[in-house]
């Protein structure tokens, strides 16, 4: 009896998740009347704006990951090594982006960094790109920090630091050649999650008026019929790819540890 209900609940749930995925895939293939074809995908891939916005978002994601790693790894390391008393404060700050909606944060950016302010970032395209990168870093901060901090918990930070110091290593060497390789798995899994978040992000990019992938998808959705579901399939594949890579690095590391 229990088993019957369990299967029933589970299959109903699966149906709910499968239908939209089937729906978007089917719809994206229907561009040619009366038969299935990949015309919608061809249209999407022929659109120059697709490649422009996609590569823009990809570059921004890379920048976000670099800034995030440079910011989070040394901080989490330092807090573990020397400043355990600062830990609650830092953790609280890293959780704030989950509390304050992205739209409110970007609203603050627009008002704070306008052309007449002390740091007129929105005045130029490059400045806005920097601002958007910082915004994405903020959005990814809770995940990145959690991931890296958990990674640091599994290694003996103090001993590794002392060993490196006694061999004459400076702080930069310790961070880049001792700590970073040891938390690489955590960094990578944070990075793939960041990639998934940044590639589909809409609100910040739209309000800062930057040509990112999210606003492009929205624009296409407002004007076309068959290309949007094709884009949805592509976006779903990208999300799936990011999560798959995340799992892969985690599993890979488990094997490494099992061997050691």
């Amino acid at each position, binding site marked *: 009896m229990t*088993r019957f*209900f*369990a*299967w029933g*609940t*589970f299959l109903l*749930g699966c149906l*709910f*998740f499968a*239908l*939209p995925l*089937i*729906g*978007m895939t*089917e719809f*994206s293939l229907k561009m040619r009347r009366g038969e299935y074809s990949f015309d919608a995908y061809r249209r999407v891939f022929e659109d120059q704006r697709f490649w422009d916005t996609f590569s823009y978002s990809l570059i921004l994601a890379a920048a976000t990951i670099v800034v995030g790693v440079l910011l989070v790894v*040394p*901080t989490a390391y*330092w*807090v573990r090594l*020397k*400043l355990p008393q600062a830990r609650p404060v*830092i953790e609280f*700050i890293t*959780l*704030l*982006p*989950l*509390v*304050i*909606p*992205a*739209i*409110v944060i*970007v*609203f*603050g*950016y627009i*008002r704070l960094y306008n052309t007449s302010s002390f740091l007129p970032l929105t005045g130029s395209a490059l400045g806005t790109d920097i601002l958007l990168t910082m*915004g994405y*870093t*903020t959005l990814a901060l809770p995940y990145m920090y959690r991931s890296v901090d958990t990674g640091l918990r599994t290694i003996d930070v103090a001993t590794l630091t002392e060993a490196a110091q006694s061999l004459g290593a400076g702080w930069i060497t310790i961070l880049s050649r001792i700590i970073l390789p040891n938390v690489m798995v955590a960094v990578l899994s944070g990075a793939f*999650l960041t990639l998934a978040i940044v590639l*589909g*992000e*809409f609100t910040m990019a739209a*309000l800062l008026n930057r040509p990112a992938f*999210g606003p492009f*998808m*929205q624009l296409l*959705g407002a004007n076309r019929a068959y290309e*949007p*579901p094709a884009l*949805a399939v592509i*976006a*779903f594949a990208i*999300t799936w790819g990011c*999560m*798959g890579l995340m*799992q892969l690095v985690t599993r890979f590391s488990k094997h490494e540890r099992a061997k050691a």
Partner: protein
Amino acid sequence: MPKQTGGQRLRLPLEWLGILPFVVFAVLFLILPTMKIVVGAFQTPDGGFTLQNLLDLNTPSIRSAYWTSIKLSFVTALLGCAIGFAMAAAVVFGGMPKGVRNPLVTFSGVASNFAGVPLAFAFIATLGPVGLVTVWLRTEFGINLRAMGFNLLSFWGLVITYLFFQIPLMILIIIPALDGLKREWREAAAVLGATGAQYWRMVALPILFPSLLGTFALLFANAFGAVATAFALTGPQLNIVPIKLFAQIRGDVLGNPNLGYALAFGMIVITALANFLYIWLRVRSERWLK
């Protein structure tokens, strides 16, 4: 440690220097922008202190936007919790094969991140006017969803769409909590003569209650701040707070910049309440999960 006496005075400030980059980043890109909004909500256009902006939120249009948003977040959080819990419980306790669980967790990880614009497209292709399910129901069974009053671009359409990321989030958070229920508790209850229903009502649910309520709060905040899905689904006309704020930032539709601050401030207050409830309850529930 020969240098200890000399180093003692220097040590404190130097150590705090190590987190300076992080603090500068957080102040510039998280705290100052938020303060700008909070302070702006209490300011007149020329900078004086006022409560008028908050009082001005009390117009029929803004009130109904907040009310719709709260209702939407509440309903999707409630349904997300209930369905997510049922699915997680089915997988953990339902005697299902082990091979089901990992794919479900992986899929939940993907689906909880598959929000925003593409999610809206997927639902338009499925439940929209010419979507897969709509057409199928009409041609095979003669059921016309439109005539029955269902519209994807309405409140319940949004609810169904939001559930696609709410349920997986619930599954991701609640499976570890269900794993924390020890087998011994169930056996102890059975030894004392409890039925299955009594075990759930008097043992398992009270233990799970903080994490259930906490996850509910998290799902609530998650739905409350979501912009992209609703915007891509319905465009700028749907009257919920994030969309209203979006339109206000783009073009000052309220005709008063400080009222925009107040609108955003209201959002912070509501999501902050929900999140602090979540964090507080999480700390409480983790006592049981060791």
